[in-house]
Each structure stands twice: as structure tokens, then as C-alpha cells.
């Protein structure tokens, strides 16, 4: 219980740090970037929108830094992130609400797939240590860790999208011919469009799962109880899954909980390359069109998602592995 409280305390501290960072960054930069932004949209903004921007970025205000900070925190606590400038007059929250489901759908499903497939490959690779599979995995991982994600996506577009014409490589569905709705055509359309982005994510993230699982499994296989199982004459499959993998999967499981939070941040560049209508692409659009309210809110959203999942991963580890509870 004390462990859970300590982790929750750290969670709160980090959340506060992220909020404060968001508050200080635009104010620390030479020449407040928000001033240029407001000047650009001068006249089109309603007084209420200008007031929200004032609180967010501290423009044209004669308040001290401290009272600015208080009203900023208050505005954040009431989830008022202001008006989007790039999508004026829509509010930031409604814009994010429209985009987030695309990201959760694409990256969420792919993360589950990568986890399942990668863990299985890791188990087999460790079980057949020294086999062809096991000798191929580590060097491939070394190279994969150095390849930029977005470039993998571009190469897949080049091969499967442009050269072979197998899959579409832009947007979440055929924006000109199809209308979003609950019907089979639209569903197929979305799946078709998600294939290449999902493949790029799978290719770039699966290595971590394989390698983590393999390395823990190699250690577990050397344990006495595995030798004992062998001596009892159990089948290889039984030993592999019920004895070794079951105990080796913990790092991967907590890693899985954690990676669900990185769902939102991990796919930024891949969404950008595919022009996918998710929050990652939206973040870059906000940056490029100087829509700082949208950018700030997305950064906070991503940070909170990561923090929550790290908290869950910590608690999960404590639940599954009693040793961490006492050691912590």
C-alpha cells in the first residue's frame, strides 16, 4: 500500500512538472511566440478567446507571474484549453476529441499485435538458442533501432503503395468518395487505409518485444525448476510455455502497460507521413501553423497518457511480483 501511495505521489509530482513546463516554456523564450500568433489572428478572435489565450501564454497582461500561474492552473483544472487557431472557431478539446479515436484505433490495435507476435517470437528464439532464428534476431534489432521510423514508413509507401498499388497511403479513408458511417464499405475502407501505417509501426516496434522476452527467457531457462521439469520428462512445449515463459513474461507485461501510453506519442511521425487523421499528425499541424493552444493541449494529453500508463505498469508489477513491494 505504501508503495502504491509513493508511486501516486510521484505521478502527481510529474504531472505538476509537466504543467509548469507548459506554463514556463512560452514565457521563457525570447520574444513571446504567442504575441505573433495573436497579432496574426487579430480581429477574428472573440474577447473570450483572447482572454483564454492571455491566461495560457501571458500576453498583454499586467498581472504578475505568480497570479498568471494560478489562473493558468485553474484553467487547466477546468479542462479549458482555449480556442484552436488553425481550426477557428472550434475549441481545442473538440478538435482533439475528433482525432484521438483514429490514433487509439490504429496504434492501439497495432501495439497489441506487436506485443503478442513479438513475445511469441522472443519465446521461440530463446528456446531454440543458437538456432537460425536466434542468430538473426539480435543483428536485425541493432539495425532496426537505428532506422528512423518515418523512413521505414516512406519505404513501405514506395514499395506497397506506389510501385505495387496494393494499399492506399494517404488519409484515414477515401475522403473524396467515401463518407464516415457505420457501414461495411466504410469499415473496409478504414482497414485498407490503416494497413500500411500499422505495418510500419509493427516493423519498428516489434524488435523491443522480441529482445526483452528473449533475454529474460534465456535467464529463466537456466533456472533449476526448468531443469527439474526436464528431468520429469515433460514435453518441450509444456516447459517452454508453462514453466519458462510464464515466469519470464513479467518485464514484457509491464512494458506492454507502459507502451499503451506511448501509443499517442509513438506514432507522431508515422501519422505525419501517411497524413493520417490522428492526434500525432494534428500536433505537427498545430506546430507548423503556430496554433500554440492546440499544441500545448496535445503535449499535455500525451504526457498524461504516458504518466497514467507508467503508474498502471508500476502497480501491475507490484501486484504480480511480490518482491518489488518489499524492495521498493
Amino acid at each position, binding site marked *: 500500500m505504501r508503495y502504491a501511495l509513493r508511486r501516486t505521489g510521484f505521478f502527481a509530482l510529474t504531472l505538476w*512538472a509537466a504543467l509548469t513546463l507548459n506554463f514556463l516554456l512560452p514565457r521563457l523564450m525570447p520574444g513571446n*511566440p504567442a504575441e505573433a500568433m495573436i497579432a496574426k489572428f487579430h480581429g477574428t478572435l472573440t474577447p473570450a478567446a483572447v482572454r483564454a489565450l492571455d491566461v495560457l501564454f501571458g500576453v498583454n497582461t499586467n498581472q504578475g507571474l505568480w497570479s498568471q500561474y494560478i489562473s493558468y492552473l485553474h484553467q487547466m483544472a477546468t479542462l479549458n484549453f482555449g480556442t484552436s487557431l488553425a481550426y477557428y472557431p472550434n475549441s481545442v478539446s473538440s478538435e482533439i476529441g475528433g482525432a484521438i479515436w483514429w490514433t487509439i484505433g490504429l496504434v492501439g490495435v497495432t501495439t497489441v499485435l506487436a506485443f503478442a507476435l513479438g513475445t511469441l517470437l522472443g519465446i521461440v528464439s530463446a528456446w531454440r*538458442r543458437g538456432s537460425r532464428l536466434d542468430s538473426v534476431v539480435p543483428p536485425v534489432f541493432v*539495425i532496426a533501432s537505428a532506422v528512423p521510423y518515418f523512413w521505414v514508413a516512406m519505404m513501405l509507401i*514506395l514499395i506497397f503503395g506506389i510501385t505495387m498499388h496494393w494499399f492506399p497511403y494517404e488519409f484515414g479513408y477515401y475522403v473524396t468518395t467515401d463518407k464516415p458511417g457505420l457501414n461495411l464499405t466504410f469499415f473496409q475502407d478504414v482497414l485498407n487505409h490503416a494497413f500500411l501505417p500499422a505495418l510500419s509501426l509493427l516493423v519498428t516496434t516489434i524488435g523491443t518485444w522480441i529482445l526483452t522476452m528473449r533475454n529474460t527467457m534465456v535467464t529463466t531457462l537456466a533456472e533449476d525448476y526448468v531443469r527439474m521439469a526436464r528431468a520429469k520428462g515433460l514435453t518441450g512445449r509444456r516447459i517452454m510455455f508453462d514453466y519458462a515463459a510464464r515466469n519470464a513474461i513479467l518485464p514484457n507485461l509491464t512494458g506492454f502497460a507502459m507502451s499503451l501510453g506511448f501509443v499517442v506519442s509513438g506514432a507522431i511521425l508515422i501519422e505525419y507521413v501517411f497524413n493520417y487523421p490522428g492526434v500525432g499528425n494534428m500536433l505537427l499541424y498545430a506546430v507548423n501553423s503556430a496554433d*500554440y493552444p492546440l499544441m500545448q493541449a496535445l*503535449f499535455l494529453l500525451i*504526457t498524461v497518457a504516458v504518466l497514467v500508463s507508467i503508474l498502471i505498469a508500476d502497480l501491475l508489477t507490484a501486484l504480480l511480483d511480490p518482491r518489488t513491494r518489499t524492495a521498493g
Partner: protein
Amino acid sequence: MAAPYVSTTPPAEPPAGTPIEAAPIPSRGQSGNALARIWRAIRSNRKAAVGSAIMVVFIFVALFPGLIAHDDPEQDNYAPKMGISTAHLFGTNQYGQDLFSQIVHGTREVLLIAVLVGLATTAIAVLVGVAGAYLGGLWDNALGVITDVLLVIPLFPLLIVIVAYAHATSVWVMIVAITIPSWSYTARQLRSQALTLRSRDFLEAARVRGERRLYIIVVEVIPTMTSLIVASFLTNALYAVLFSSSLQFIGLGNSSSVSWGETLYWAQNNAALQTGQPLWAIAPGACVALLGTGFALLNYAFDEIGNPALRPVRRHRRSGRRSRARAA
């Protein structure tokens, strides 16, 4: 180059690419044949050999780009969209620029960012990790919390926000922006290693001798951690390559400078893949991947030389066969 146990300043790593000091062999002295030892390490470890070969080539290209590519990378008076020829090894793009020359001249900026960010982040990591762990008390607690908080805030979105406000108009802004939030991971690693060292006898001996704290940290603690410090330099350099290229790719760099990330940005902006100029995007991305692989290979090699347990099992060795026989 300083041999292990002789270097006196914290960030005394060799420049990227020059093969690193050999494994921390637990004998003092013998500093005279350090070069011979490095040479032996490179020859006996395939990862080290390939990694240093990649580095040597890129460093040479970065130092003398004019010797390799005779065209001015910004000059745009060739025929547009030319294919591969002996005059233009990678062809030309739609502006009539020679792509080979852009790649060759773009090497310097990437390597500069990698080395400087690697050195700066490692210096901060050593300062925060080692000094904090050794001094203990309030300082250690404060530095530890800052490291942990920075560790869980998602790095790439944070970088996007920082660079979006700062406008990376020059390579120096880029270097500072990447350095500020990126040191926490290696600081954490160095810290936990330094904590295990704290109660060792040789440090106790130094304390009894009445040495000053600074002397103990610089002369006794840091040299013992050389291998981890070099590994931290290589890790951070790899991330600097990937982060800077990604930031430039999404348009947050200085679009008039010559570097691989900028070449990728212009290729994406002009839909190079869709308009039949695939090499415009393939070549710079492949170079990023190759340079990153160089850093990663050196890092793994360094780990293996220092920690024999990690060395891969060779397929034809007896140990592999035995484990398979056992599995059957």
C-alpha cells in the same frame, strides 16, 4: 588518447568513431599499449570492426566533403530529375541539384550534432549521476527526482514543443534544444552504477588517506566507470542523430542548411516518392540509418567486450548443440 584509469576530466571520451578504449581490464598500468589493445579488440569483435569502419568513412566524408563530391550541393543548374549516372551518382532532383553532393555535404552537420549532443548530455549525466550519487544527502535526492521526472515525460513531443517555441534557426539552437531534456536516461544508469561503487574498499581507502571529494570523484570513481560513460556517449549520439533528423524532417530545422534531415524534408515537401524521384528520400534516410547503426554497433561491441556474458552464442559451437540436444 587517454587510456582507462589515466583520464582525469569527466567527459574524456574519444571523439565518436575513433575506436573506444578496450574493455575495463582490471589491471592498472599498461597504458602504453592502449592503442594495441584497442586494435586487438576491434579485430576480435565483428560488431566493433563494422561499427568503427562505418564511423571512419563518415568522419572522413564530414571532414573532406569537397574531395568526394565536386558539385556544390546548393547549385541547381543541372537538368532536373536525372537518373543515376557516373556524373551524378544519385541523380538529380526536380530543382536540378546533385543529390550525391547533398548527401556528402550534409554529413558534417549530422555528425557535429551527434558528437556535441553526445558530449554535452554525457557531461551532464556524469555530473548529475555520479556526483549526486557520491555526495548523497539532499543534493542526491533533488537530482534524483529531477532525473526521474524528466525520464517519464515523453521526449520527442517535448522536443517538438521546445523547438517549436525556440525556432531552430541555427544548428547551435538545435544542439542546445536536444541536449536540455535528453540526458536523464544515461544519468539514471550512471547513478545506479555509482551507487554500487560508493561502499567499495578502494574509495574507503581514498577517504582514509584524506583525499578531497572532488579528487575522489574525478580520479577514483569516474575512471572506474569509463565503459558506462562511453556507452552513454554512444547512446546519446545515436538518439541525437535520430531526433535531429526527425525534427528537420517535419520542418522544424533551418530549411536552408545542408543536412540529411533537410534533404528528407524537401523530398517529402515535393512528394519525391510520388513524382518518380525516390532516391531523393531513400539516400538521406539510408545514411541516417547507417550512421545510427555505426553508433549502435560500437555500443553493443563495447558492452560485449566489457561483459562476456552478453556475447552471442555461435551457431556451430558445442554449447548451442548441447542446448538443442537437451531441448529435444
